[in-house]
């Protein structure tokens, strides 16, 4: 079987087949294989950081066997991807050492790989609130994207600048960066993405009155981007309605969002929206729903290794005071295992 065919098979076959292929060491030493494993890691980037880390580890091993400049390039990307997954899992020290590793393997400067590492490392700096470092990385990423004439890279860099400003509580500055991101957005979908982020800034700033109005206006555009984005629009509207004290509306919006996001098997987002829905239901007086929602959220967060977030869900569960009842309900309905039973990717070796 040709390497490209192997890579294709890896990409299209379901999980057990992929795991089997990964274990066949004879197919390790191809750039296509490493690229394919890296693509798997990226696919899980914002959903299953635990899996993303495992796939990135496999990509690293494959890249090591490729050798040469291409192998180094792939190693740098794999290390950075693993670093990002570790960051999301809260393993910041490990993430830092992986980024150092990525820089040490980068064969040449000024390429798309450097931009990728800069943006991923900036996320760690933002999460750690080391703002000087974060802005240094983001400015370097912006300059690099401009020098390369890379609209997608520039869009990502400016979006990340906006999100960094938002995290730092500089909401107006965040909106300015997001406006710049929209100005360079390569596709209509990314333009709507930038506007969505703008409304997210409004929600974080507590400007729900305007935010609700904007999210209503953006509704049809979310629909044009597909059901997942439509669900994200509902989620945002639910958050804003909650801030406005309209808890019934919030709970309804969040339920719609959760059902749609669940259907896309998005672990992380499902758990997040479950938490928000549990809180809205609690405030709306639908206490009987809270325990089950919060229990599933806590389990989902634990399944992907996000313990801090699992604790938030567990807190809601305690508030609902229905721990045992909720557990029994979930076990009875078989909700957890019936819906998400895809096995983790194979071991590194």
């Amino acid at each position: 079987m040709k390497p490209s065919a192997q890579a294709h098979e890896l990409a299209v076959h379901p999980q057990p087949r992929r795991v089997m292929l990964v274990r066949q060491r004879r197919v390790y030493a191809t750039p296509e294989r490493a690229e394919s494993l890296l693509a798997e890691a990226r696919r899980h980037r914002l959903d299953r950081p635990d899996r993303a880390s495992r796939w990135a580890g496999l990509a690293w091993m494959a890249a090591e066997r490729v050798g040469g400049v291409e192998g180094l390039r792939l190693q740098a990307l794999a290390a950075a991807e693993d670093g990002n997954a570790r960051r999301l899992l809260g393993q910041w020290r490990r993430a830092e050492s992986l980024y150092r590793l990525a820089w040490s393997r980068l064969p040449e400067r000024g390429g798309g790989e450097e931009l990728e590492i800069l943006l991923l490392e900036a996320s760690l700096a933002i999460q750690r609130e080391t703002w000087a470092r974060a802005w240094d990385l983001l400015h370097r990423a912006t300059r690099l994207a401009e020098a390369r004439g890379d609209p997608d890279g520039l869009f990502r860099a400016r979006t990340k600048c906006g999100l960094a400003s938002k995290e730092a509580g500089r909401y107006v500055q965040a909106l300015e960066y997001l406006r710049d991101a929209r100005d360079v957005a390569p596709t209509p979908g990314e333009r709507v993405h930038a506007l969505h982020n703008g409304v997210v800034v409004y929600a974080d700033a507590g400007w729900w009155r305007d935010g609700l109005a904007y999210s209503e206006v953006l509704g049809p555009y979310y629909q044009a981007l597909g059901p997942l984005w439509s669900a994200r629009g509902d989620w945002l509207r639910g958050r804003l309605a909650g801030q406005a004290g309209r808890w019934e509306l919030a709970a309804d919006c969040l339920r719609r969002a959760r059902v749609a996001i669940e259907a896309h098997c998005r672990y992380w987002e499902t758990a997040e929206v479950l938490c928000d829905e549990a809180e809205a239901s609690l405030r709306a007086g639908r206490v009987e729903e809270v325990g089950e929602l919060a229990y599933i959220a806590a389990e989902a967060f634990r399944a992907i290794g996000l313990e801090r977030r699992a604790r938030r869900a567990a807190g809601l569960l305690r508030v609902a005071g229905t721990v045992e009842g909720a557990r029994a309900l979930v076990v009875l309905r078989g909700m957890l295992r019936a819906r998400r039973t895809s096995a983790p990717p194979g071991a590194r070796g």
Partner: protein
Amino acid sequence: MPKGGELSRALRSLRERSGLSQAALAKACGTSQGQVSSYELGKADPGATVLVRMLSAMGYDFADLDAALREVRGEPPRNHTPPPGTAPPEARDILRPQIEDELIRQEVDRRVGEILGAVLREMTPAPEGRSKNET
């Protein structure tokens, strides 16, 4: 010092908000209904003592009179705080034009799509044996 017309309109507005009739207010502050009417029409100046008594009878103070005068003049209230959940103007000035621009763009795209669709339908020959109108 407020102009006579402004003060009279502010006093009338405060009295109406308090729910008192001219007669009731006059009785509460020891004057006549005709006198209250002339204050509200700007025909007479109530003077400081009567003004304090009128405000007190209506349950207001000078801060309320000041707010009523600003309202009459069309000025924003002092220490104006926007309602909760409202974005500051500088934030609105950034996001709102973008959303409006997106609305225009999408509307233009939709209309262009409709026109192109119509043109293409015109250009596409009708299947044999069927006239255009049959479709």
